[in-house]
């Protein structure tokens, strides 16, 4: 058997543990990032100007600065202020803050395309803003944002590979360790790339299914056949 394959089998418990960590981080940040994005989106629509200004700055900051800066700031910078967090905690907090900003922006973009007379109709019917948001605005903006939100999940998966820089033992960290042991850099990183591609393909298939199922009536994908 090829020596490289033997290495992979030999290190499979380590690889699988890394894969588990990668998927865990992706799942946690995708779910927390969606919830956070909805929360930030809600605040951007509120009447409070200061809060609106604050959420806008928050979004601009996290979209405008690299993710790695946030992670390093928390993992290596905060200990200097006496705040020490685990690699997993830093990864979850850092990624969630970042992903929430992107998701909020996607929802705001969808909201801009929404027929606003519906919101006026809801007000006229006597719905409070919270009800209008929950019953009218959110169901539609979420459905309109499915392509962007699922692309973000793919991005999240790929971004987990950055977490090894703050000592988080993810899949890529394990592959890097294997490469530095057997010096098979080319084969190891090609294998790592293929695993990411396979995982992304699964997410893409699920995303397209979700897109079809949740398309707003009248906005279904046109059949070009």
């Amino acid at each position, binding site marked *: 058997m090829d020596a490289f394959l033997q290495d992979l089998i030999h290190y499979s418990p380590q690889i699988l543990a890394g894969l588990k960590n990668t998927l865990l981080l992706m799942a946690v940040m995708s779910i927390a990032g969606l919830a956070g994005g909805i929360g930030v989106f809600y605040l951007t629509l509120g009447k409070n100007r200061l809060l609106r200004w604050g959420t806008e700055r928050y979004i601009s900051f996290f979209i405008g600065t690299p993710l790695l800066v946030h992670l390093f700031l928390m993992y290596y910078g905060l200990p200097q202020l006496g705040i020490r967090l685990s690699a997993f905690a830093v990864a979850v907090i850092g990624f969630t803050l970042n992903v929430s900003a992107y998701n909020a922006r996607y929802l705001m973009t969808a909201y801009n395309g929404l027929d606003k007379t519906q919101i006026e109709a809801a007000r006229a*019917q*006597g719905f409070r803003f919270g009800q209008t948001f929950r*019953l009218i605005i959110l169901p539609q903006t979420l459905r309109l944002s499915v392509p962007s939100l699922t692309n973000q999940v793919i991005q999240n998966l790929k971004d987990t590979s950055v977490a090894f820089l703050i000592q988080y033992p993810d899949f890529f960290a394990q592959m890097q360790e294997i490469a530095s042991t057997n010096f098979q850099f080319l084969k190891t990183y090609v294998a790592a790339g293929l695993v990411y591609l396979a995982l992304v393909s699964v997410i893409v298939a699920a995303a397209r299914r979700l897109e079809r199922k949740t398309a707003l*009536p*009248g906005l279904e994908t046109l059949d070009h056949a």
Partner: protein
Amino acid sequence: MALIEVQDLVKRFDGKEVLKGVNVLLSEGQSKVVMGASGCGKSTLLKCLNLLVAPTSGRIIFKGEDITRPGVDIHRLRQDIGFVFQHFALYTHLTVEENITLGLRKIRKMKTAAAREKAAFELERVGMFEHRKKYPAHLSGGQKQRAAIVRALAMDPAVLFLDEPTSALDPQMSREVVTVINKLYLDNITMFCVTHDPFLAKYISDSIVFMHEGVIVAEDIAERLFYEHDDPRIRQFYLSVIDHR
């Protein structure tokens, strides 16, 4: 008894006075139509009456209560006023039935089955029952407006406001909607309607209020206002809308 009494209503937008001291009365069971050229302030007047637009000054008495004073429960007030919009404003992610039951369930706190039954009954009245499972995107303009009327009516409001209900429709669909609103008129539903459409105005009104540049110029029954009134602004308006039909 007056259901709505508007006293000296003024609305200013960025220094521009859109309503310049409007006085109107609407009694229970009465149907009143407001007509006037674009920009005369008629839609603003309608939106002031359920506080979708905040009046600058003046008083609005609804069911004996001054709703312009601070501390009024704006949501409770709006729940008592049905509103039909020019561009239908149906909730696009919900079916016709869900559009109607949403308010019944969430505002009137009805059980789903009872809300559906009420929706079915109201849809039947306007010939829309068979379309209840369709989404707004799959309806014609006339069907959308009929669904929007049912959505407003199903809440059993004290008054139905209609803001240019036929303006976004072609003549055939417009006629469909006029027939439905005429039925409501014959059922003595209290209505306050803003329109350009003299055909609609004639068939659904007890009296017509004519507005010009934020002021009420005249109020009379359709026949007299259209054919006998000698105010040149009314004559000119009537001739222009007749020309466009």
